[in-house]
């Protein structure tokens, strides 16, 4: 990666040709074999989980707006595994992959998509509004840009409580044009809040290509606020994880925010109703050729730490997990109509 100095206080690190970049690069002291297996499992789980979710949507089991994460797995897995258990995160509506990478129960995620009482949000939130506070997963947010200020506030609270937790905030390239992006980056630097801003640049905000929605480069703009800002290859889970660890380490030890722009690509439409008139099939095919999961498999097999048997074992585990999730969701009861009025506010003796 060639470093191009932008300002005294911040640097934009450019990866060669992300996302057209090469497959996983050899890390000096990279993840252990266990970690690599874990990454592969999570990436394959997310891939399969989303395929299944798509099926369930066409079957009418899942309703509302549904945004699949397929293609971006390396981002979630590389970034979120760099967090500690006591760290917190908020993300946007394309949140299944992030929830799975953070270790939320697949059964309860699928149940949420089914709108069942066993869901992580009790069936009240749906795909765009997943929450699991026990995992520091403070939500998927459906209003573009709205969770960025929340992340600053979470960072501020951590700073005030002097616990050393870091807050991760994930959002897309299209969100960068929102005013709250600007307000949040500025506040985070001014107040030195430990927040990792992780932008998944999949080149489109719905059907609008980034160059039509932003007059400049994302990581370059972020650097102008005086925070460390890097652009990385989001199709390489090892690079993402390496950069993510640096970012989290920086926030935890130095305090203050850190910005990562991960170049990636979404294979499926923006949502289930997307006619995809704005891009060519060929473009999608091109990116599928550089699939992050395949790249990781190659990396592991080349190093002799993955063989067909091992791969089959993981695939089988993934299959079982996803089938279990659907079974759990199917079996999970609908929330009772008598619960409709509960929890509009929290009152003494509620719980």
């Amino acid at each position, binding site marked *: 990666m060639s470093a191009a100095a932008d300002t005294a206080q911040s640097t934009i690190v450019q990866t060669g040709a992300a996302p057209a970049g090469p497959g996983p690069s050899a890390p000096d002291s990279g993840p252990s074999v266990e970690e690599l297996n874990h990454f592969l499992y999570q990436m394959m789980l997310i891939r399969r989980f989303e395929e299944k979710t798509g099926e369930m949507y066409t079957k009418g089991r899942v309703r509302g707006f549904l945004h699949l994460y397929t293609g971006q797995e390396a981002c979630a897995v590389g970034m979120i595994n760099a967090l500690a258990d006591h760290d917190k995160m908020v993300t946007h509506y394309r949140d299944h992959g992030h929830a799975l990478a953070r270790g939320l129960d697949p059964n309860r995620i699928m149940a949420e998509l089914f709108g069942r009482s066993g869901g992580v949000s009790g*069936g009240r939130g749906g795909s765009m509004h997943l929450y699991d506070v026990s995992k520091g997963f403070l939500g998927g947010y459906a209003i573009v840009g709205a969770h960025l200020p929340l992340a600053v506030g979470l960072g501020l609270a951590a700073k005030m409580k002097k616990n050393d937790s870091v807050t991760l905030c994930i959002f897309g390239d299209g969100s960068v044009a929102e005013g709250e992006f600007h307000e949040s980056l500025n506040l985070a630097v001014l107040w030195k809040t430990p927040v990792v801003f992780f932008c998944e640049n999949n080149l489109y905000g719905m059907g609008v290509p980034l160059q039509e929605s932003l007059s400049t480069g994302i990581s370059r703009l972020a650097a102008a606020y005086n925070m460390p800002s890097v652009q990385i290859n989001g199709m390489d889970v090892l690079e993402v994880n390496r950069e993510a660890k640096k970012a989290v380490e920086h926030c935890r030890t130095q305090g203050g925010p850190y910005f990562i722009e991960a170049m990636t690509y979404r294979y499926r439409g923006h949502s289930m109703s997307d006619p995809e008139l704005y891009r060519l099939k060929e473009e999608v095919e091109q990116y599928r050729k550089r699939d992050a999961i395949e790249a990781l498999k190659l990396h592991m097999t080349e190093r002799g730490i993955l063989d067909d048997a091992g791969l089959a074992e993981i695939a089988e585990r993934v299959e079982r997990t996803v089938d279990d999730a659907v079974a759990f969701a199917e079996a999970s009861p609908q929330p009772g109509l008598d619960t409709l009025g509960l929890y509009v506010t929290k009152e003494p003796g509620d719980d």
Partner: protein
Amino acid sequence: MTEMRMRDALKEALREEMHRDDRVFLMGEDIGAYGGSYAVTAGLLKEFGEERVLDTPIAESGIIGAGIGAAMGGMHPMVELMTINFSFLAMDQIVNSAAKLHYMSNAQITVPLVIRMASGGGSQLGATHSHSLEGLYAHFPGLKVVCPSNAADAKGLLKRAFRDENTVIFIEHTANYALKGEVPDDPDFLIEFGQANVLREGADVTIVGYSGSVHQAMRAATMLQDQENISAEVIDLRTLRPLDMETVLTSVRKTNRAVIVEDDWKFGGFGGELSAQIMEHAFDYLDAPVARVASKDVPLPYNRNLEFAALPSEEDVVEAVLAML
């Protein structure tokens, strides 16, 4: 007359007005290449080109503000906000700039702008994506608030919006987009603002609705006729500001009973205004207090059963009517 869905009637209105007046242009998130999240603008980029159909970044306050500025600069823009839920981000521009400039400038400045927004619940989008804000916008002097319930009205009212020199908040209930109806082809077909529509005549009770709730009102009227032999008059307000109270009052003075149906939350909703005005102007005609049927006082949940339970239904309307007879 041509039969078409409301979404196509809206598109026809946009096409005709763009051909009629070159001050008219469109901007919004994904209205171009994507074709619009509810396909209202599909094809217009191809027909009118990038000059007049602008895909914008996701920056609601910025694009509404730019629409206001362009209107001040002599154009007549239409800005589409994907859904009304995102208008909270542009509310300052709508309330403090668009609604007030004509008055504050002592009539020097006008803001001829049409803001189109998809609205309403019922699609399991969850609480952040299911607002009904017709009443909220109707609260602000300087705005006009339009909320059609069918294809023909949608066309006539949207075309009329482009003949107005003020900012028109044009609200489209997502449940209405696919509704088919006979739509006049006449390029001069306009529906004036402030003219409620009596969709069904009746003698025993007046049911008032707007936007999506008109359909619960109509279904309830049929149920009342068929099951209870009660004759209900149904009124579609069509615009909340200006508001046609005369049509409502004339009806209530005849039926002596009124039920208001709306998708919005009841507490502090527009139904309160209607209820209060009916009391103020037809007190002696009322045989029973005006009833309000609206959403339960909760953020709209994703789960289908819960969402349906929270939203007003035709059964709720029937129940309200029976309770007052």
